[in-house]
């Protein structure tokens, strides 16, 4: 349940950044221009795909799997937790790479990106806890 809620917050946050990226939002609520510096850098997209859109897709997948995992007929099944674990681990690794870019290459901190990184780390922790609980109970 907690992982679904976290994924939903991450999804909304990514959607906000993606809408900015495609020009649907007039301005980014950031304050000091650092978010724009990050969003306007060449690292804000990978092979032409905006990083924020990758976040939307990733969080959507995590959200759906998390919802599936709490359905009565799947309670006790191991695979939703395993899929969540893989997706969250991938998200943590990707966020670590993006945070490195902000710190060492772009030299600007986008607070929304930091927020997303914090959410995916928290989500990863929640999924690991769930996996450990499943193992103990079985």
């Amino acid at each position, binding site marked *: *349940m907690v992982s*679904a*809620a976290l994924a*939903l*917050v991450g999804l*909304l946050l990514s*959607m*906000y950044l993606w*809408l*900015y*990226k*495609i*020009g*649907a*939002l*007039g*301005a*980014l*609520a*950031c304050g000091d*221009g*650092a978010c*724009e*510096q990050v*969003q*306007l*850098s*060449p*690292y804000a997209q990978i092979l032409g795909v905006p990083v924020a859109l990758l976040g939307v897709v990733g969080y959507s997948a995590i959200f759906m799997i998390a919802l599936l995992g*709490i359905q*009565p007929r799947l*309670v006790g099944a191991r695979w939703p937790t395993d899929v969540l674990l893989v997706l969250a681990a991938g998200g943590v690794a990707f966020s670590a790479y993006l945070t490195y870019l902000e710190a060492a*290459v*772009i*030299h*600007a901190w986008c607070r929304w990106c930091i927020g997303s990184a914090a959410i995916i780390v928290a989500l990863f922790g929640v999924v690991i806890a769930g996996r450990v609980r499943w193992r103990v109970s079985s």
Partner: protein
Amino acid sequence: MAGPQQMKRFYLGLGAIAVVGVGLIFIARARGNAGSIPTDAPVGVGAAFEGHIMGSDSAPVTVVEYADFECPACAQFAVLTAPDVRQRLIATGQVRWVFRDFPLDGHPFSMPAHHAAQCAGEQDKFFEMHDQLYFNQGRWVVDRRPQSRFRDYAKAIGLDMKRYDDCMSSGRYLPRLAREREDAIAAGVSQTPTFDIGGQRVSGALMYDNFRKYVDQAAAAAAAKSQ
């Protein structure tokens, strides 16, 4: 396992998060648009853009420059050669200058710098910002936060800072700059600065005398063609 009542509360909670989140995005959108300049954003999608132009439309030679604000050779040309070109060729009506943005991949501050110049262009001061960016390139490329320096340059050239800030935070020129880069690549430009001088393509930070020779050749070819 959670009971039906607990699940119901959980789904209501998710719904509340979604409603609040979407609401906040709408509020941010309304605020962002209220503070921006009334223009079709993002700029340049589906519209033809021919570059930033300086000089007379009736000049016999048109020079198209493809350049990147973070490129050192472009800065060298802008500092050492461009002042003479402007004074002796553009101001005298011999050359019409077209600047095409070519923000290169791998230059982390190039896109924000080009965007700052587009925002200055909205206030008819593109070339003033162009000069600030090139003459101060050595400072901002090593800066951890060049965006604040761009803002200083915007102030120095007398921009309306409210409009500049709105423009920068909107990112509305990003699509056009991306398309400019694609256009340059499609046109076969592989390095910066590259100049199309009356149809002849040359690259590098040319010195004035050398540059002048190409312009004279182009002017002679244009004159021969018109006879």
